[in-house]
C-alpha cells in the first residue's frame, strides 16, 4: 500500500477481546478498502484501512488480533500489544477504539480498565447490544464514559446503528486531541491480587451501568419480561445477565457430547474435505485450461521463437502455476471461516486437544494443521495462536506433511496413470487414502519427535489450553469472505514470487544454451518438427546437464534423470512437477486434456537407450509416496525459518522429510517388484 500518501492521516487502532465484534466493526468502518499487512518484524497479520468515504473522516485504522489483557500470553498477543504501544511501521496511534461485548461487560471491561490505567486516549465501542436487550437489559453508555473519562458509544454490528455517532465522537476526539500526545505508561501492578481487585471494581461498574431494557416497539416481548424482572433487577440482575444462551447449551449437548462429540467432529471434517475436492476440482481445471489456452494462443500469435516461448511457457505458465491453487485455498478458507464464525471451530479445538496433547501438540494446533491441507504458508502463520513454544514448533514442523493443494495435481496425474480410465471412482478413493496416509504419518512422526523433544525442540514452557467457546450464531458472510480473501492474498504474496521466478529459471534452464538446434527436419510435418526441435533443445539444455548429475540418485527408484529434473523443478511448487513432465516428455499436442496427453507420453517413455518402460506401476507408486513426504517447497522453508526463529526447524524438515521420502519410495518400488508388480 502507498504509505507516503496516507502518512499524515491520524492513526486509529482497533482492539478488543476475542469475540467482541471487533472485526465486524472494522468492516463497517473501512468497508472493503483495507489491506492485510504483516506486523513489522513478525508475520502476524493485521489489516490496515481507511475510513469509508461516506463518513468524511480522513484517518487510517488498524485492526489487530484479539487480546484478553495487556499482558501477553502467546506470540500473537505479544505483537499486538507491542504494536499498541508503538507500531514500528505506523508509529503511535492517535486514538484507540476498544470494543466491548455489552453482554460480557464483567469480563471485557478488564482491557478497558488496563488501557485507562496506561493512560491511552480511547473510545469505548459497546457491541452486541441486541443480545443484551434480548436478555432484558440495557447499558448506560454515558455513565460508562464518565467513569473512564472517555466517550462510549453503542454499536449494533448487524445493522450498523451507532456507527454515525461513533464517527462523530472520533472526529471530535481527534480534533480536540491535536498536538497533545498522551503519556502512555506500562501496567505497574499486575499481580494476582491487583487483578482480582480490578475485577471487583469492574463488577461495581457493571452494577452501576446495567439498566433494565426500556420498552421498545421493536422488542415487544422484552417489556413483559421486564415487568417481572424489575423487582429482581437490583438483587439478581447480574445473575440474569450472566445466563448463557440456552440455544448454545442445547447444541453443545449434542456437539460436545462426551462420547459422540469426537465422532461428529471427524464426520464434519470428513465432509469438509470431500466437499473441498468436489467444489474445487472443476475450478482448478478451469484455471488450468484457461492458462493453457492463452499460452497456446500467445505462442501462435508471437510465432514459435524464443520470445514467444518465454512469454507463453515462461511468464504465462508461471502465472498459471500460481493461480491454479487459488480455488482450493479460497474454498478451504471459506469453509474454515464459516465454521469459525458459527463457533464450531473453537469446539473442534477443544475436542481434539486431548488426543493432540498426547503427541506433544495442542488443541490450538488443529486449525493450522487443517489450513495446511490448502497451503503450508498461511498454516504456519496461523500457529502464532499457540501459546506454548514447543507445541508451536512441533506444529510448524509437521505442517508440511499435510497434503497441500499443490500436491493434488501431481496425485491426480499419477493416479490417472495407474488407473484405467473406466475406474475413475477408484481414483477418488485412492486420493482419500493418500490424504489419510499422510495425516497418519504426520501423527506418528510428531509423536516420535515429541519423544526426543528436549534435544530437538529446545523449549520448555507451560502447556496450556484456555479457550472461550462463543455462543453459536449464523455466520456473517462478509466477515468470512474478507478473511478468505486475506488468507488467499497471503498465499499469493508469499508463494507467488517464488513460484514465478522459479518457473522462469526452469524455462531458462530447459531452453538454453541450444535455443535453435540444428536438426534435420526432412519428412516431418510442421507440428512434428516443433516437437523434434523442442526435444533436441531440451536434451542439450542446462537442465539436462544438471539432471544427469541426478542419475545415480534416481536409478534406485527405477527412474532416470528426466524425472529428477521434474522433481528439482517441483521445488518452485510441487505442481510444477506436472508441467515439467509435459516439457521434458515433449507433450506438444493436446489430447482432450493436458493430463491425458502427459499420461500417454508417460506410457511411451522408455529408460534411456533401452526398451524398458520408465513409468510402471511400481515406479509411479514410489513417486506418490515420495510426494507425500518430501519437503519440496522453497516458500514453506522460508516461512518455516522466519516463524520458528532460525534454521534449525527448516533444516530438520528438509533432512528428515526428504530422507523419509526417498527411503520409503525406494522401499515401495522394490517391495512391489519383489511381488512381481513391475
Amino acid at each position, binding site marked *: 500500500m502507498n504509505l507516503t500518501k496516507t502518512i499524515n492521516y491520524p492513526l486509529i487502532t482497533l482492539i478488543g477481546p476475542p469475540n467482541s465484534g471487533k472485526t465486524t466493526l472494522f468492516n463497517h468502518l473501512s468497508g472493503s478498502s483495507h489491506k492485510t499487512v504483516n506486523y513489522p518484524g513478525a508475520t502476524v497479520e493485521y489489516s490496515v484501512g481507511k475510513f469509508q468515504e461516506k463518513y468524511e473522516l480522513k484517518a487510517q485504522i488498524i485492526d489487530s488480533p484479539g487480546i*484478553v*489483557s495487556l*499482558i501477553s*500470553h502467546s506470540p500473537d498477543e505479544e505483537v499486538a500489544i507491542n504494536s499498541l504501544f508503538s507500531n514500528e511501521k505506523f508509529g503511535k496511534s492517535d486514538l484507540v477504539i476498544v470494543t466491548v461485548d455489552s*453482554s*460480557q461487560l*464483567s*469480563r471485557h471491561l*478488564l482491557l478497558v480498565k488496563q488501557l485507562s490505567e496506561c493512560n491511552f486516549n480511547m473510545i469505548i465501542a459497546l457491541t452486541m447490544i441486541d443480545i443484551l436487550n434480548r436478555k432484558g437489559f440495557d447499558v448506560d453508555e454515558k455513565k460508562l464514559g464518565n467513569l473512564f473519562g472517555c466517550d462510549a458509544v453503542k454499536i449494533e454490528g448487524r445493522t450498523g446503528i451507532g456507527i454515525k455517532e461513533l464517527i462523530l465522537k472520533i472526529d471530535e476526539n481527534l480534533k480536540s486531541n491535536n498536538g497533545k500526545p498522551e503519556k502512555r505508561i506500562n501496567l505497574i501492578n*499486575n499481580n*494476582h491480587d491487583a*487483578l*482480582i481487585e480490578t*475485577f*471487583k471494581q469492574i463488577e461495581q461498574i457493571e452494577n452501576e451501568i446495567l439498566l433494565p431494557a426500556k420498552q421498545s416497539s421493536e422488542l415487544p416481548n422484552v417489556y413483559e419480561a421486564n415487568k417481572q424482572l424489575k423487582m429482581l433487577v437490583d438483587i439478581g440482575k447480574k*445473575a440474569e*445477565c*450472566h*445466563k*448463557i444462551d440456552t440455544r*448454545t*447449551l442445547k447444541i*453443545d449437548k449434542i456437539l*460436545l457430547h*462426551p*462420547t459422540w*462429540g*469426537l465422532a461428529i467432529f471427524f464426520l464434519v471434517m470428513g465432509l469438509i474435505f470431500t466437499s473441498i475436492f468436489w467444489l474445487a476440482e472443476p475450478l482448478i481445471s478451469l484455471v488450468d485450461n484457461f492458462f493453457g489456452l492463452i499460452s497456446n494462443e500467445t505462442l501462435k500469435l508471437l510465432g514459435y521463437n524464443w520470445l514467444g516461448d518465454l512469454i507463453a511457457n515462461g511468464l504465462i505458465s508461471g502465472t498459471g502455476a500460481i493461480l491454479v491453487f487459488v480455488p482450493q485455498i479460497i474454498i478451504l478458507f471459506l469453509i474454515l471461516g464459516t465454521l469459525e464464525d458459527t463457533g464450531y471451530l*473453537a469446539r473442534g479445538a*477443544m*475436542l481434539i*486437544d*486431548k*488426543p493432540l*496433547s498426547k503427541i506433544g501438540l495442542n*488443541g490450538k494446533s488443529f486449525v493450522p494443521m487443517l489450513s495446511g491441507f490448502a497451503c503450508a504458508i498461511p498454516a504456519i502463520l496461523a500457529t502464532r495462536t499457540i501459546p506454548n513454544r514447543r507445541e508451536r514448533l512441533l506444529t510448524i514442523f509437521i505442517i508440511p506433511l499435510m497434503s497441500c493443494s499443490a500436491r493434488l495435481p501431481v496425485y491426480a496425474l499419477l493416479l490417472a496413470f495407474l488407473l484405467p480410465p473406466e475406474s475413475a471412482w477408484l481414483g477418488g478413493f485412492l486420493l482419500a487414502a493418500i490424504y489419510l496416509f499422510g495425516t497418519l504419518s504426520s501423527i506418528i512422526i510428531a509423536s516420535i519427535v515429541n519423544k526426543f523433544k528436549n534435544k530437538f525442540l529446545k523449549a520448555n*514452557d*507451560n*502447556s*496450556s*489450553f*484456555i*479457550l*472461550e*467457546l*462463543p*455462543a453459536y450464531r449464523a455466520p456473517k458472510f462478509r466477515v468470512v469472505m474478507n478473511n478468505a480473501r486475506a488468507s488467499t492474498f497471503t498465499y499469493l504474496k508469499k508463494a507467488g514470487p517464488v513460484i514465478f521466478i522459479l518457473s522462469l529459471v526452469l524455462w531458462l534452464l530447459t531452453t538454453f544454451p541450444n535455443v535453435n538446434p540444428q536438426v534435420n527436419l526432412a519428412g516431418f510435418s510442421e507440428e512434428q518438427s516443433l516437437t523434434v526441435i523442442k526435444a533436441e533443445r531440451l536434451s542439450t539444455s542446462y537442465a539436462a546437464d544438471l539432471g544427469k548429475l541426478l542419475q545415480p540418485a534416481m536409478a534406485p527408484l527405477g527412474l532416470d534423470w528426466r524425472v529428477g529434473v521434474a522433481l528439482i523443478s517441483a521445488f518452485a511448487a510441487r505442481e510444477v512437477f506436472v508441467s515439467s513432465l509435459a516439457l521434458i516428455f515433449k507433450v506438444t499436442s493436446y489430447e482432450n486434456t493436458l493430463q491425458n496427453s502427459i499420461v500417454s507420453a508417460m506410457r511411451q517413455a522408455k529408460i534411456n537407450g533401452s526398451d524398458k518402460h520408465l513409468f510402471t506401476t511400481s515406479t509411479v507408486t514410489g513417486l506418490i509416496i515420495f510426494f507425500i513426504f518430501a519437503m519440496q517447497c522453497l516458500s514453506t522453508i522460508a516461512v518455516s525459518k522466519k516463524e520458528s526463529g532460525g534454521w534449525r526447524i527448516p533444516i530438520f524438515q528438509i533432512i528428515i522429510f526428504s530422507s523419509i521420502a526417498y527411503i520409503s519410495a525406494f522401499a515401495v518400488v522394490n517391495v512391489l517388484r519383489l511381488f512381481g508388480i513391475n
Partner: protein
Amino acid sequence: MKSAAQLKFGEKVTIKNVDDSHPSSRRIIEIGFTPGQEIELVNKSTFNDPLAFSIRGTLIALRRNEADCIKVE
C-alpha cells in the same frame, strides 16, 4: 479443598481462590475466574479433558490440570 476439575455436570459452585503457583493462573483470572464467581461444569470433551465451564455469562474450555487450580467451596 475441592477444585473445579472435580465438579459433576450441572453442579454450581462458587470460586474460593485460584492457586497462584500454577503457570496458567494469571490467564485463568484474566479470563474471569475470580473468587466469589459462580461456575458450573457444562461440557466435557471426549476423554473428560478439557472441561467447559460457564462463567460470567460465557463458556470457557480449560484443561483438567488447569481447572484443578481453581479451588471452589
